[in-house]
């Protein structure tokens, strides 16, 4: 059985070490917060200038001055701190975050990430903090379905979409398997209802199963 989006979020949450400082990208990565174990001590960073971000704000909690990177209202946890944008991105660029979780259009076997532009000629380019996040965290986790709607794989020998960052992805969480990109070969860390053989058939990248 392939994983639901919720199950994927749960598996990513499981793999975040207790006490980590983590940035959750816009979209699906945001849902990982729902599955962090209470008492895990994981602290969430939002690149618009906060550590210690809490859950989404509801009702009277909504404060237009307190949002996440997706500009949605959020809450503040005890032990939080605020800082300006240059300090926030210094924190990321300087390698202080333990984990950053992002979506992707494509990831290459060598860990290149493409998640900001489909390269369509009429698209309005917009990168936000994606390139800074990609190169900044100690580990970059990608969450995506392994195959696009047309069945083409999103884990590829080399990205055809414009890159966000080079060789920056440490782990790729998909609905059917989890991968660790490497210089020569991609390691299959875990599978969900699919065999290594079938993965090898459907992907154009060299795979090894986890030892």
């Amino acid at each position, binding site marked *: 059985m392939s994983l639901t989006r919720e199950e994927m979020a749960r598996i990513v949450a499981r793999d975040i070490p207790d006490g980590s400082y983590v940035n959750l990208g816009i979209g699906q990565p945001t849902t990982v917060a729902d599955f962090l174990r209470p008492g895990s001590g994981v602290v969430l960073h939002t690149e618009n200038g906060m550590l210690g971000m809490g859950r989404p704000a509801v009702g009277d909690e909504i404060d237009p001055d307190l949002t996440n990177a997706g500009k949605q209202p959020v809450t*503040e946890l005890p032990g939080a701190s605020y800082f300006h944008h240059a300090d926030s991105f210094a924190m990321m660029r300087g390698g202080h975050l333990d984990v950053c979780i992002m979506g992707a259009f494509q990831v290459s076997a060598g860990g290149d990430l493409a998640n900001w532009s489909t390269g369509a000629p009429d698209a309005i380019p917009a990168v936000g903090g994606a390139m*800074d996040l990609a190169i900044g965290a100690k580990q970059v986790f990608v969450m995506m379905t392994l195959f696009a709607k047309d069945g083409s794989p999103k884990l590829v020998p080399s990205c055809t979409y414009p890159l966000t960052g080079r060789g920056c992805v440490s782990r790729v969480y998909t609905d059917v398997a989890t991968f660790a990109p490497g210089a020569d070969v991609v390691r299959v860390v875990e599978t969900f209802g699919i065999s290594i053989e079938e993965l090898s058939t459907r992907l154009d990248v060299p795979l090894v199963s986890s030892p």
Partner: protein
Amino acid sequence: MTATLTTALDAVSAVKEGDTVLVGGFGMAGMPVELMDALIEYGAGDLTIVSNNAGNGDTGLAALLAAGRVRKVVCSFPRQADSWVFDGLYRAGKIELEVVPQGNLAERMRAAGAGIGAFFSPTGVGTPLAEGKESRVIDGREYLLEYPIRGDVALIRAHIADSMGNLVYRKTARNFGPVMATAAALTIAQVSKVVEVGAIDPEVVVTPAIYVDRLVEVAR
């Protein structure tokens, strides 16, 4: 000089035709909406706007774009669910766009404020945004050379100011304000309240008064 407390319209009269204007805010958090309104009323045009986004909805920066006053936008993320004003101008070829990764945008303004001539950033290496940039390998890692972004005027929103111009912000509305205040020749801060000198604890000042030239009080 101690900051001057004035009206929004008087404050923005410092903006000249063709100026580069740094506009604070991340989405609407920290956006100095009333200063943008005054800038529309005042009328300077041919502006280059540096801001994280390219306007939301029909107010603030979006309204300035709609009024045809902006020649170019330098930002990290123009395309949003509610960026229809920018989208229309861009597709019609009526506005220039320079996309800069968000962290480089912040750091380039910091460099302008801090007197740094240029810096090597690892962000964007190997991407289309590296095109035309000088690159260098330092200590085994590749970097791109990034230059300062200076403003003629910065328009920012803070929370409370004292009458000298010391500023504190509120939550994530702090975002670009403290950086932009250092990077412009003239900084205009819209604040919710101006208090007397001495009413802000010197330990908690985020933007020292030296960076603030004009204050506009807009109760929220």
